[in-house]
């Protein structure tokens, strides 16, 4: 990543114009050509320096239900329980964390009722209690990493 890449990333974290030729506009602000901007963006996405570039949608506002769920999984059962949890398409993410509560998964379903249904099924299949922690309030700040 050179300095120009850094400038581009810092600027583009703040937002992107919704106009006819947005890349030309941003390129002009930085002092490069539109072609160079597109080139660098393309490379940074390819190299995974950037994870993505585009509209950031608020999935919750589009409908559907979400929840964060945790389980205290005995070590001997960990791989099996992970397989059970991962087998649900409604489980979008699943992480191991260093804590007694050592499995954390994110549920994304079409209706709130399905959250409960999936959790009950996981409990039945694993014999473990799951701890459902939906968000009650979000204090959302747009974090920007200055690169």
């Amino acid at each position, binding site marked *: 990543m050179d300095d120009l890449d850094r400038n581009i990333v810092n600027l583009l974290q703040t937002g992107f114009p919704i106009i006819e030729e947005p890349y030309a506009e941003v390129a002009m602000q930085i002092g490069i050509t539109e072609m160079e901007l597109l080139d660098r963006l393309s490379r940074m996405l390819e190299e995974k320096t950037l994870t993505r570039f585009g*509209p950031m949608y608020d999935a919750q506002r589009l409908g559907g239900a979400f929840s964060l769920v945790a389980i205290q999984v005995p070590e001997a059962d960990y791989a099996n329980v992970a397989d059970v949890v991962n087998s649900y398409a409604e489980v979008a993410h699943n992480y191991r964390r260093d804590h007694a509560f050592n499995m954390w998964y994110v549920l994304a379903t079409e209706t709130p009722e399905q959250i409960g249904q999936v959790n009950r099924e996981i409990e039945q299949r694993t014999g473990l209690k799951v701890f459902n922690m939906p968000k009650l309030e979000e204090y959302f700040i747009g974090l920007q990493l200055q690169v």
Partner: protein
Amino acid sequence: MNIAVTAQIARNGKSKSVHELFVDETDRKIIQATQCGLPLVSRPYDVIAESIGASGNEVRQRLLDMQKKGIIRRIAAVPNHYMLGYKGNGMTVWNVPDELIAELGPRVGALNFVSHCYHRPRCLPDWPYNLFAMVHAHNREDALLLVDEIANLLGDADCGHDILFSSRILKKTGMRLLT
């Protein structure tokens, strides 16, 4: 490396009425066409319009509307923080008295190393924490220093806390909106 913060705090919840958040068929097509990213071409919104059978102006207007309603947070680049050396990413959790969380939650969320901050229900007796804040640092030692900063901010309202680092990613599928 410095971390800069935007000024906006959005209190999410049940305050928006349903009809304000309505998306119609054309909006859905726009969402599906852009959820993986914006085309890297000179006139990206025209290209999207072409692909869904609408006009460029209509696409731009709808995107602006969705942005106004908060359906689109913003159109932006998302850096890969692991690539940038942020290896100490942890979920900090706090037990904050219920009557204080409305005031303190946003203040924790406003800290420049916190990316997500939520009020979630406790699960007593095993899980007494009701405030969750994701922190980002270059390594775990630095992340622990960030925990101290939050603790200082909370003062007496810190009735217990912990930090949970992820040790393994078990599953990660992109959330497909509106399949």
